[in-house]
Structures are given as structure tokens and as C-alpha cells.
């Protein structure tokens, strides 16, 4: 295929990687965007969701926020933010043109999986364990830090992993509003009918998504107390983006 030859030619030419709008710079920019958005979503979402899960309140909200989030197109959200007087298309340091709008859109996009998973993680701690902790005289705060959080951590991390990969992939949409990131390579190649370049951009995005997914899977494995002893146990496939544990509790309620 001609396009794949073009793609290879584009990728193997070092000049396309260098420079301020080369692949390497855009990749770094998108990584920075993704990690910042994820961090912001964690700061906002984790404390609220974990504490609500600890108290067992607000479940309806925590579960349904995922469904609401799915219904709102990121493109529409981003478009609204860019056209609005604030945040608009202003340049934001290393985040580039429309950096703030992109960050806000991606943060909002990362919140639902983080909130839903963290809430479910807290609720899924076995009631016997919780009662035993109370019977030992633990206060609510002690229960939260010493029992519920360690036991729920794998599911919390799987929510973060889901959010990470989704945010990384979705960050490319910023290019539709002339924003930052690797999406530029894709749309640029596409609009100039240079499909090889577009596909090259897509390939880089997909490859990094896979790397992020694998790294996140390793982190998840490292924090899972039950899997540490028995490496053969559990049901991970490294590629599972929407693991059964993530979807099931969310759907059985709605």
C-alpha cells in the first residue's frame, strides 16, 4: 500500500521528529496535558469519591456520573470552552494554544471513571471486614486508612488506568479546535491529503496508548495485595481497558 510506504517514510525521517512542532515535541506536550489533566481529576475526584464511598452516601450520583459523562461529546465540550470568552484559545505555557480549554475538558472527561471506580472500590470492601475493624475499636478515619483504602486500592488504580488511557486518546481531539498535541499531526496530514503523515500520527498515538496501558497495568499489579502472593491468580489481561470489575458494578445499579 502506498499510504503505508508514505507513513514509514514520514516516521523514519528524523527531521519530522525534531523541532518545536515535530513529533517528539508534540508527544511531550500531549503527555504533559494527559498527566496534568489526570492529576487535576485525581485531586478533585479522589477525596470526594473515596469519602462518599466510605460513608456509603451519594451512590446514585457517583455511579451515574459515568453515564452522564459518556453522553457529553468531548468535542462539543471543547468547542464550547474554546468559543467562550473564558478560557478561550489563549496560549498557556507549555500546554500551547487553547491549553487551558483542553486541560479543563480533559479533566472533566477523566473524572467519571475515577469517581465511579473509587466509590465502588470503597463499597466493595466486604462488610465482615468492615465490621471486624469496627469491633477492634477502629474509628471511622482509621477504618478508612487502614482497612478500606488498602483493600480498595486495586480498583481505584484500575479507574485511574482507565482514565489515563482514555484521556491520552481523547487529547488528540484538541486538534479539531486547533489545540495542542499529536492530533495536529493527524489533522494536518489529513487536511493536506498527506494520508501517510496522518496515519503516522495515529500510529504514534496508538503506540503510546499501548505503552501507557502496560505501565499502568504494572502499577496496578504492584498495588494489589491479593495478587502479590499468587502471581497466577486474578484475571488480568494486559489490554483490558474496560475490565469486568469496572463495568459490572456500574451497570448493575443503573
Amino acid at each position, binding site marked *: *500500500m502506498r*499510504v503505508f510506504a508514505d507513513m514509514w517514510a514520514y516516521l523514519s525521517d528524523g527531521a519530522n521528529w525534531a523541532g518545536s512542532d515535530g513529533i517528539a515535541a508534540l508527544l511531550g506536550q500531549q503527555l504533559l496535558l494527559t498527566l496534568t489533566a489526570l492529576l487535576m481529576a485525581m485531586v478533585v475526584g479522589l477525596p470526594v469519591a473515596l469519602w462518599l464511598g466510605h460513608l456509603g452516601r451519594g451512590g446514585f450520583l457517583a455511579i451515574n456520573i459515568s*453515564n452522564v459523562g*459518556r*453522553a*457529553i*461529546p*468531548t*468535542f*462539543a*465540550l471543547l*468547542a*464550547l470552552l*474554546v*468559543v467562550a470568552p473564558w478560557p478561550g484559545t489563549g496560549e498557556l505555557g507549555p500546554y500551547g494554544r487553547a491549553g487551558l480549554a483542553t486541560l479543563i475538558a480533559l479533566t472533566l472527561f477523566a473524572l467519571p471513571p475515577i469517581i465511579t471506580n473509587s466509590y465502588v472500590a470503597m463499597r466493595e470492601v466486604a462488610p465482615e471486614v468492615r465490621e471486624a475493624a469496627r469491633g477492634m475499636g477502629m474509628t471511622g478515619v482509621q477504618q478508612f486508612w487502614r482497612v478500606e483504602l488498602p483493600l480498595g486500592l486495586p480498583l481505584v488504580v484500575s479507574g485511574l488506568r482507565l482514565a489515563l*488511557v482514555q484521556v491520552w*486518546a*481523547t487529547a*488528540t*481531539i484538541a*486538534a*479539531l*479546535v486547533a489545540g495542542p498535541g499529536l*492530533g495536529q499531526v*493527524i*489533522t494536518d*496530514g*489529513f487536511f493536506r491529503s498527506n*494520508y501517510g503523515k*496522518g*496515519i503516522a*500520527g*495515529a500510529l504514534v*498515538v*496508538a503506540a503510546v*496508548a*499501548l505503552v501507557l*496501558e502496560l505501565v499502568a497495568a504494572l502499577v496496578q499489579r504492584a498495588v494489589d495485595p491479593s495478587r502479590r502472593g499468587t502471581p497466577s491468580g486474578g484475571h488480568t*489481561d494486559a*489490554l*483490558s*481497558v*474496560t475490565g*469486568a470489575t469496572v*463495568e*459490572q458494578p456500574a*451497570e448493575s445499579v*443503573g
Partner: protein
Amino acid sequence: MRVTLLGAADDPSCYSRLVNDWVCMDYVSDRQQEIVDATIQHIGITVVSVVLGLAIAFPLALLARRLPKLESAILAITTGIYTVPSLALFPLLVPFTGLSATTVVIGLALYALTILVRSLLEGLRSVPDDVRESATGLGYGRGQLLLKVELPLALPVVMAGLRVATVSTVALTTVGSLVAYGGLGNLIKDGVLTNFRAELFTASVLCVVLAVVLDIVLVLLQRLLTPWTRGVRA
């Protein structure tokens, strides 16, 4: 028509460049045809994509169930597709299918497929073994068992997956504006390019409304198809 809303005839309309309101009913009534066309395109692309996704997911799920060795491969491949961003997938397909609605439909069907294969497998797995055994004992063949016992019992889980797939497809269709077949996404894109707030806002709201409406339709359909769960679930 808009005069009645604004009072004076020489006032600029609320979607003129000078005013550029976010919410503007004049825009909706004046550009009604354009909005209806975009909405119909959006619904069409969404429905065809999800149906196509379901049509591919069904045999895949059956195959995965019959051959457990294939299951992890099928799940890995479909999940791999999901990590390809939509913005990347459409240009990837253009060299083969051109700038057409087909490009968008194939891309979206691939995404829907990922969700649907998983929920079909999960649904079929949720059928209790004793039910399956008693059906076999009653003389049901494999095909009959699937159609008359397993599928109806798997329906709640499958419908949950179908709802997720439909709602995400409605949202993802907007990205199809890249190849000019994005339904309401086309209006959103135009709204950004021309700084047309009423157009952008109206199309965005319609997108969300469309997702909610289709979700409700599926819930009603599920109630209709599984009358036996009504007493328990409601």
C-alpha cells in the same frame, strides 16, 4: 417570526455577529431545516453503526464462547481497537473508504463492537448452568437453547451494554465532522470555525438530548422484551 420575539423589527437578531448569543430561538426557527437534517444524519449514523457493531459482535461472541482459546484473542483485538483514538481512526480509514458516511460508520461500529462483544459474553455467561441443563433435558437443541433460553436470559446484561455503546456512539459521531459526516458535529465544527455561538450551543445540547432519548428508547425496549423482570426490577 423573530420580530415577535425581539419586539422591534430593526433590532439585530440574536444570532447576528453583533449579538452572538449562546441561546437563540431565532436561530433554531430560521435554520430549522439545517438542524433537522444534521440531527437525522446523526441518528442515522449512530443507529447504523450500532446495528452493524451488534451484527459483527454476535457471531464473534458465539465463536469466542465455543472456542475459549479464541476468546482472549478476540477480546485483546477488540480492546486494541479501542485504544486507537477516534480522531486517528477516521483518517486511517479514508484511503480505503473515502470521504463518506461509510468511513464514519465503520469506525464507530468498531468502537461499539468492543463494548458489545464483552457484554454479549458476559450476558451469556450469566445464564445459570442448571437452567441450561434443564433446557437440554427437555430436549432443546443447541440452536433452540440459544434462541429460546440463553438469549432471553442474557438480555438484561446485553441491553446494558447496548445502552453504553449507543450513548458513546452518539457522542463519538461528532468527531465524524472530520470527514464532513458528523451529523450535529458538523454544526459544532462550523460553530467553532465561524465563532457562531448559537449554532455551537444548539448542536451541543441536541447531542446530549439525543443520547438521553436513545437511552430511554432502549430502556423501554428492554421492558417490552423482558416482561418477566418488570415486577422484580421496578
